């Protein structure tokens, strides 16, 4: 038995972490937040591409590194931890959608350009309302093209291509849309996350290529949930470390506040929630890697647990900091805001916990 990441994957993670420790973190997030003219850090993005992080999951035949899910998961964790203002998660999700649901021609067309960093991708199911990821999209594919509105789409304003859910006669499916056409309008939308820019993509009979249908989408959704769970755990861990560091230093009533059980037990709860989420996420990484039937339940559990851990930690990190944590100057806000972004990114907690129970029911019924 070996329920741990491979040494190679850990090594890659360490490299990425070193890079992001130096380049990213709250300060870089703040720079992007404060400058309305930039949507991401282009210099950092070059570094990300040079490190091979966009090429990770691209098969060697398409010019990539052909690495597995483990590596992708650990990189997602580092993106989450560092808040790196680059479109890496979007591009990774685009890559997974292409791998799960793309035709050979689509893969051949896009994967090499993902690998070499010349293309930024994005994905999205949201339509600005209260839909969940698997509800029938309003965006519609007809003979004349794809028509509808997609929002909020992370990094859409800087992406060259996107994969969106849409409805067609045969049912829901995925569609690949190049942004460089008149039928596609992209504009920035304001969200609760002031660092990761989101866009609204308006499609009017846009050229769009059909990809796989509901099954491929479901498979993609599970894999995306595992990646997003790792991202959330990374963000959560950074918030937890921030809280603990503060609790070790800050003094009130003559002692460091970390001595008070009110603080200590909260920190322990952050850790407990993280460990549970991490165990499920690792289970998901394994199922993703080996294409195990447990993927769906592991993904749903991982995402539910990770969102819970992150929301709790982001909130209590502010609380442990007291007044200073509530200021604009404090870095607490990045975790607080990102928690909302990750929750909305792929369907919120309620959607995933229900999906988890449905999967468990199906498994129980099959076993009976």
């Amino acid at each position, binding site marked *: 038995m070996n329920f741990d990441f491979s040494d190679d994957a850990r090594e890659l993670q360490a490299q990425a972490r070193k890079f992001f420790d130096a380049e990213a973190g709250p300060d870089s997030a703040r720079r992007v937040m404060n400058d309305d003219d930039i949507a991401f850090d282009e210099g950092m993005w070059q570094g990300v591409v040079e490190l091979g992080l966009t090429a990770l999951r691209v098969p060697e035949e398409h010019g990539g590194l052909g690495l597995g899910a483990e590596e992708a998961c650990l990189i997602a964790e580092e993106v989450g931890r560092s808040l790196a203002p680059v479109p890496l998660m979007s591009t990774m999700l685009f890559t997974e959608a292409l791998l799960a649901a793309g035709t050979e021609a689509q893969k051949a067309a896009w994967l090499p350009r993902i690998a070499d960093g010349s293309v930024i991708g994005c994905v999205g199911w*949201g*339509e*600005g*309302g*209260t*839909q*969940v990821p698997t*509800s029938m999209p309003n965006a519609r594919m007809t003979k004349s093209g794809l028509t509808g509105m997609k*929002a*909020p789409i992370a990094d859409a304003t800087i992406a060259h291509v996107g994969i969106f859910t849409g409805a067609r006669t045969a049912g829901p499916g995925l569609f690949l849309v190049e942004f460089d056409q008149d039928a596609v309008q992209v504009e920035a*939308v*304001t*969200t*609760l*996350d002031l660092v990761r820019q*989101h866009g609204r993509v308006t499609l009017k009979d846009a050229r769009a290529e059909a990809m796989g249908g509901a099954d491929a989408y479901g498979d993609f959704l599970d894999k995306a949930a595992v990646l997003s769970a790792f991202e959330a755990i990374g963000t959560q861990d950074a918030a937890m470390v921030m809280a603990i560091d503060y609790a070790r230093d800050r*003094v*009130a*009533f*003559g*002692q*460091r506040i970390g*001595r*008070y059980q*009110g*603080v200590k037990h909260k920190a322990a709860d952050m850790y407990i929630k993280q460990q549970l989420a991490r165990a499920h996420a690792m289970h998901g990484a394994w199922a993703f890697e080996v294409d195990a039937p447990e993927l769906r339940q592991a993904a749903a559990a991982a995402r539910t647990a990770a969102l819970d851990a992150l*929301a709790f930690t982001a*909130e209590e990190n*502010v*609380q442990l900091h*007291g*007044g*200073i*944590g*509530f*200021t*604009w*100057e*404090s870095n*607490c*806000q990045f975790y*607080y805001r990102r928690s*909302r*972004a990750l*929750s*909305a990114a792929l*369907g*919120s*907690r*309620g*959607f995933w916990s229900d999906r988890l129970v449905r999967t468990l029911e199906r498994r129980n019924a099959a076993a009976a």
Partner: protein
Amino acid sequence: MDFNDSPEEAKIREGVRAWIAEHTAEYEGLPAPASNEEYVARQRSWQKKKYDGGYAGITWPKKFGGQGKGPMESIIFSQEEGKSAAPTGLYAIGLGMCIPTVFTHGSQDVIDRFVPKALDGDEIWCQLFSEPAAGSDLAGIRTKAEKDGDEWVINGQKVWTTNAHLCDYGIIVTRTDPGAPKHKGLTMFIVDMRDPGVECRPLKQMSGGSDFNEVFFDDVRVPDSWRLGAEGEGWKAALTTLMNERLAVGGKPRYSPDWSTLMAVAKEIETALGPASEQADVRDQIAQAYINDQGVKLTQQRSLSALSQGKTPGAEQSISKVVVAKQMQDISRFALDISESAGFMAAAEGSELAKLQGSYFGSAGLRIAGGTDEILRNIIAERVLGLPGDLRPPKDTPFNEIEAL
């Protein structure tokens, strides 16, 4: 039990209502003030009317210019004022907290100089207590005041000061004897907020708004006659102020979401199984929100009722803020969650969703302001339930010799 006014209360309310109706007509339907000056002018005009009408300082002793009436008169006036278009808020801290401290601890000269001009709205006051290193542990104050002849020279920094930039005067707690034990070396003064050595900077919150200030003091001189209470007795004076704060803090901010906001939002969310408001988990949240929101309101009614009966309220109200703030955060998070994408994108101004988004940020601050959840639980456990206090360093250690453990 009777939720209605007693005949006496009804009579008071009738008079108040008529007076308010007559005097607030000019504020009906006004747009929000376009500038600080307009804001201050509007607030001041209302305070003047109250002063002229005999509704300022309702419970204050007559010798300080008050009306010398009971708490019920004051409660009824606030209730009716709250329902009207009257522009309130700017004077709450000054008249609710600062001036009662001034007339409790100030000399007769100081009282004569400051109290009337505060009551009629001429001069606006703020409270300068919190510091970066003195939040929950308020007595950890480091802003220092040093005696120089008949004057004191103040240097240091305060933070979380509401409306500092609009105020004329403030009450400030300073450390005058760093060699005395922590609670013994403090002294309170009146300070002129227009002094050139006073600099107010707006403090931006994580929500983006700026409701508070940082205030810096650079060689600000105040006469010894502006001292409130004896030298070294600043903590005692501060307790007077805080006692009044505890009465003021606790309610829910106006326009904050409650159980009915969640119900309204959930009714509009279509799920595969009908409106989200029919799902058991959403219903459970609504029920919990009602229990908390309405429970706090009813608890406050219990306190008001005791006041109106001439009794001293119990410790019931101590739970108010600790319940309200966390409930706001929980309900906001939950509502934003079930709203999926819509809950994450900036919602249309004035919408229920926008209220919930604002409240998700605001509640994080409310859980801290005026005593954190943790401090309030300590207070409830120690003062209400009689549990012993946390271990602390010895009370008699000189402030400048306290080592953090």
